């Protein structure tokens, strides 16, 4: 009964989504206030029925209702209850349901938090988001219904959730990632609205910015969690593989980063308007492309869902409608939203344009690398070709190094025009200090010449010292240092936090790539190996029983400088339902190093192959990502997004007192 209720809610949600995509838009062109006003309750209704539907599927999982095909293939009665819940998004159909629930949630959030938006704009934005919901609800109901029943002979027990997904990281990774992917639909809807109205001003950019920041922050966390999960769950100790599925999440992130910066220029200076619109369309399009690539089975990987050409065709049709139509609309309407202001060669606008170009070129390089095997096969008709990490590193790393050089110059420069003398005065010392320290500090610690390390440390210092220099000069004339700090806006702190995150990531990636020690050794109980000041002693393996698996649990005691330090317990699990074997590494996470132990194969007489890694500064990769996301969140909290927007002069609907309270300080 409950699955039928869930199915019925989906149908109702589809009906409401159809109404949402049609009625308010009709209202806009008929100038019918009532139809436009309907956009809010329709968004709320769509959200409620999606939530109900999601709740029904979750209930079917918790209730072990194996007559539902999706539950039967993604759960098992022995599964711990929290994994039964997360099993809801453990496969294609359920994760699609989560995906659409999130579209509905963003739609509802826009309708809630946009009280200051003119009604005609709001109606268009919500309508566009309604169209997205319609597309994916149709896709779900006709090709991937999670509530399909197994009418004949429902199995007594389910086949189990993929053991790789039975893990905390996977409880939170997909929701965060989808929140990011889907969150870009808000910026997309605003962009389509701008093209439709031909009106793109500072107020438009100000409405769009917090939504974009939020989506970007979610995506940052989602990607970081995915990388963290790969690091400890796949058992290789690697954290980024340039796997196609990683690339498809990374591309919208890069374009989203470009969009955040381009929106800043559009808000402050009124230029790059049509470029901003194109980036907003591109960010969401790349999210959809990622969804398509992973769900159509176009590429095989750990993430890929079952191959089904029919699903692929429907998804491709959705891509054509959503991306193709919006890019076509862009081609027709972009001249209407042209910028007017001017800027000079050393302005912040120009440096941010360079930032945008670098980010977009990196994205294009990654897109080409990801699709190249497909293109090669289509053109030559010949065997597969593979593009590996060396290609991506060759393309990506130099571009990022350049990006960092411009990052500090851009954030220290001023709008419209920055004198070269000012830039020199601000940055010459910073540049000298970061180059000198970048060479001296690693040399003093390691006593070896390692150019990539010098470069990475210098670039990270270039960011960090640049931030310090900028804060110093911005607080210099404000009485005390503290009152100077208080006078800076949250947007400013958000920006600098995110930039600091970038510096931390650079250090993490480079130090861990160059100084990690990885040993795969055959160890009998009592034997050990020494790495640096640590000694790892293998104590043996014993059988332990988990709720739905049996495991060989190893014990590795670690000594530091000869003293007992800690114990690592890596496991090798065999899951009952599927018989699949899963490596669970044990990691001691530290601020400056991770100690990593994983079990390989047994080698007779109680001996095992044990994988021991010492990974310096690897934690900084995720720390940096969280700083970046935190920066995005801090920027959203800036007062100017919260006060009633009064800058939009051409819409008389809005109450206006003529002054932006955030500028006068009288909130």
């Amino acid at each position, binding site marked *: 009964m409950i699955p039928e209720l869930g199915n019925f809610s989906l149908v109702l949600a589809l009906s409401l989504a159809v109404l949402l995509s049609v009625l308010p838009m009709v209202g806009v062109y008929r100038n019918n206030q009532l139809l436009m006003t309907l956009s809010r309750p329709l968004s709320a209704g769509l959200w409620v029925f999606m939530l109900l539907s999601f709740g029904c599927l979750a209930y079917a999982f918790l209730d072990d209702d194996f007559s539902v095909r999706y539950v039967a293939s993604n759960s098992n009665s022995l599964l711990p209850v929290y994994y039964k819940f997360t099993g809801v998004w453990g496969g294609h159909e359920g994760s699609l349901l989560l995906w659409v629930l999130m579209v509905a949630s963003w739609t509802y959030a826009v309708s809630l938090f946009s009280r200051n938006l003119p009604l005609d704009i709001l109606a268009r934005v919500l309508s566009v988001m309604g169209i997205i919901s319609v597309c994916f609800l149709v896709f779900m109901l006709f090709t991937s219904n999670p509530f399909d029943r197994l009418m004949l002979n429902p199995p007594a027990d389910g086949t189990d959730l993929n053991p790789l997904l039975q893990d905390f990281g996977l409880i939170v990774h997909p929701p965060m990632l989808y929140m990011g992917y889907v969150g870009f639909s808000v910026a997309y809807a605003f962009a389509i609205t701008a093209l439709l109205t031909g009106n793109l001003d500072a107020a438009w950019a100000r409405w769009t910015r917090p939504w974009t920041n939020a989506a970007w922050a979610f995506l940052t966390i989602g990607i970081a969690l995915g990388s963290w999960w790969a690091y400890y769950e796949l*058992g*290789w*100790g*690697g954290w980024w*593989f340039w796997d196609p599925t990683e690339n498809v999440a990374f591309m919208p992130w890069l374009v989203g980063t470009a969009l955040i910066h381009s929106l800043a220029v559009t808000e402050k200076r009124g230029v790059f308007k049509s470029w901003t619109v*194109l980036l907003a*369309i*591109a960010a969401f*399009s790349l999210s959809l492309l990622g969804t*398509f690539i992973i769900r*159509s*089975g*176009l*590429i*095989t990987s750990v993430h890929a869902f079952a*191959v089904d*050409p029919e699903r*692929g*065709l429907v998804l*491709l049709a959705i*891509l*054509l409608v959503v*991306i*193709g139509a919006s*890019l*076509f609309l*862009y*081609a*027709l309407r*972009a*001249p209407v939203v042209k910028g007017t202001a001017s800027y000079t060669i050393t302005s912040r606008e120009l440096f941010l344009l360079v930032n945008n170009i670098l980010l977009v070129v990196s994205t294009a390089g990654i897109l080409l690398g990801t*699709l190249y*095997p*497909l*293109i090669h*096969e*289509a053109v030559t008709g*010949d*065997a*597969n*070709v*593979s593009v*590996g*990490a*060396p290609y991506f*590193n*060759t393309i990506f790393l130099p571009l990022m190094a350049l990006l960092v050089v411009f990052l500090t110059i851009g954030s220290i420069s001023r709008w419209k025009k920055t004198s070269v003398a000012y830039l020199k005065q601000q940055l010459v010392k910073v540049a000298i200090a970061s180059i000198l320290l970048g060479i001296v500090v690693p040399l003093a610690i390691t006593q070896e010449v390692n150019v990539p390390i010098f470069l990475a440390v210098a670039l990270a210092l270039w960011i960090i010292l640049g931030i310090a220099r900028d804060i110093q000069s911005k607080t210099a004339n404000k009485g005390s240092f503290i009152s100077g700090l208080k006078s800076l806006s949250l947007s400013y702190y958000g920006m600098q936090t995110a930039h600091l995150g970038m510096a931390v990531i650079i250090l993490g990636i480079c130090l861990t790539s160059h100084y990690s020690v*990885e040993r*795969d*050794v*055959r160890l009998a109980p009592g034997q050990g190996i020494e790495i640096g000041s640590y000694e790892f002693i293998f104590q043996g393996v014993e059988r332990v029983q988990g709720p739905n698996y049996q495991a060989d649990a190893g014990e590795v005691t670690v000594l530091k400088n000869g003293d007992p330090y800690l114990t690592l317990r890596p496991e090798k699990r065999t899951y009952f339902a599927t018989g699949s074997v899963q490596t669970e590494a044990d990691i001691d996470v530290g601020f400056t190093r991770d100690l990593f132990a994983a079990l*390989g*194969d047994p080698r007779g007489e109680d001996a095992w*192959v044990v994988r021991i890694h010492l990974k310096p500064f690897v934690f900084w990769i995720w720390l940096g990502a969280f700083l970046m996301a935190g920066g995005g969140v801090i920027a959203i909290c800036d007062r100017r997004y919260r006060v009633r927007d009064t800058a939009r002069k051409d819409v008389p609907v809005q109450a206006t007192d003529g002054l932006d309270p955030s500028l006068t300080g009288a909130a």
Partner: protein
Amino acid sequence: MNKRVKLFIPVAIFLVMAGFLLYGLGRDPNTVPSALVDRPLPEFTQPSLYPEQGEYSSGDFLGRILLVNIWGSWCPPCHLEHPFFLEISETEDDITFIGISYDYSTIEDREFLAERGNPFDYNVVDLDGSLRIDLGVTGAPETFLVDQQGMILYRHIGAIDADVWNDKFVPLLRQIR
């Protein structure tokens, strides 16, 4: 170019890409492995990973059982299977191990082998990727089992451990020994 025309570039790029995606839907990536089995190992002449050792040709290896492994020092699963290769290269005396470096940096590969041990009897480098294309390699690591007549018996995608070896390779080896 006309400015209005330029604005159509994004949609044009997208449509071309959509064409490739449509093509991609029509193929099944899982059919690739079987296509090479029971066909001869493609002929090749490639330089050694160690420049002083010159070049190797596929003809040099006829009459021997070959285990051809495509790997790279940048590839984590290759690190994973490396200790196992070290081990079986000791015990499986009648198999000739050929490592094909899938890499842009031969220096790092040489360092890797020097540091962790070299399981391969011959190290070939595939700088221009032509051998990978001939073999239809989808990524690293991949391993081909070739019999004395130069025919490919089995292709394995992904890392090899004791289980894979015992399940897939040992039965085939029993047949040809």
